[in-house]
């Protein structure tokens, strides 16, 4: 039995994670594509027209999943930051840097689609509301992380500095999540809550959940793909890199 246990720490080494990420990313990319097609089909052809917001409400099928992902990816970055600081593992910093651009992108998309929803529904592209402002701060935290880590030449020091930003900034995530409860905001309350039944039609809910899963699989695929480039950049002088089949001519 003990022989069948997987030594997870083996994959903390960039040399063994590089090929593993290479094997895994196509699967996640495939799942993302299938879920995206199903999610879009439900979003446009199955989900009924909203009786209050007409067809404009269909923006939520990407707005809500993008917002969830922007918060979730930041939590994953903070997780890797904590691991990196505690165990001093090289791969953790690489994972954080691989996730940051995708997180920033989803934070941007959350704000962008929110603005495009806000204009017809509220009459304003932007309001300084608690939910919107805290999401904007999340976007700036991602940008700050990327700017800080790329401004420091030594990657290990860059990881440490970035880890501090990730860990301090993660306090903003519950603020975003609970902002609609804590303050009297213009933004509507949570569409899906863990404590009570969803307040929306089942097909709408399914569309949103499947799109969220699609974004989730996409994020895993792109982060695994990007981390391979980061591993090669940082491990360029290692013997195992020189011995890779793609390095031979």
């Amino acid at each position, binding site marked *: 039995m003990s022989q069948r246990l997987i030594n997870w720490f083996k994959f903390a080494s960039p040399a063994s994670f590089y090929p593993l990420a290479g094997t895994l990313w196509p699967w996640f990319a495939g799942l993302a594509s299938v879920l995206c097609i199903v999610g879009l089909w439900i979003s*446009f*052809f199955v989900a*009924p*027209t909203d009786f209050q917001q*007409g*067809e*404009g409400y*269909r*923006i939520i099928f*990407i*707005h809500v999943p*993008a917002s969830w992902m922007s918060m979730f990816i930041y939590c994953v970055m903070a997780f890797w930051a904590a691991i990196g600081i505690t165990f001093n593992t090289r791969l953790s910093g690489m994972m954080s840097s691989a996730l940051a*651009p*995708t997180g920033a*992108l989803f934070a*941007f*998309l959350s704000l*962008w*689609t929110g603005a*495009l*929803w806000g*204009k*017809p529904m509220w009459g304003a592209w932007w309001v300084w509301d608690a939910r919107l402002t805290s999401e904007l701060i999340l976007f700036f935290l991602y940008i700050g992380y990327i700017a800080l880590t790329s401004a420091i030449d030594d990657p290990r020091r860059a990881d440490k500095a970035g880890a501090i930003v990730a860990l301090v900034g993660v306090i903003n995530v519950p603020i975003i999540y609970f902002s609609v409860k804590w303050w009297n905001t213009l933004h509507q309350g949570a569409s899906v809550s863990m404590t009570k039944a969803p307040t929306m039609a089942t097909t709408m809910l399914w569309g949103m959940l499947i799109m969220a899963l699609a974004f989730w699989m*996409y994020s895993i695929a*792109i982060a695994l*793909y*990007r981390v*391979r*480039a980061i591993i*090669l*950049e940082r491990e*360029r002088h290692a013997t195992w*890199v*020189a011995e890779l089949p*793609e*390095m031979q*001519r």
Partner: protein
Amino acid sequence: MNWGSASEFFAMGGYGFYVWGSFGVTAAALLIETLLARKRLAETRRLLRRELAADRDNQD
């Protein structure tokens, strides 16, 4: 089915600009990110291959 015709579908009940502006920019952003990631890995590989080849030539 919600739509009687293709033009009805694209009009999105008058919300066409907002709906397609959201979905279009999202699709474009994810596509651009994918292309940039591919470019980054390919360029890193090309650079490393060149470096390794130079090292080999120096040793010969």
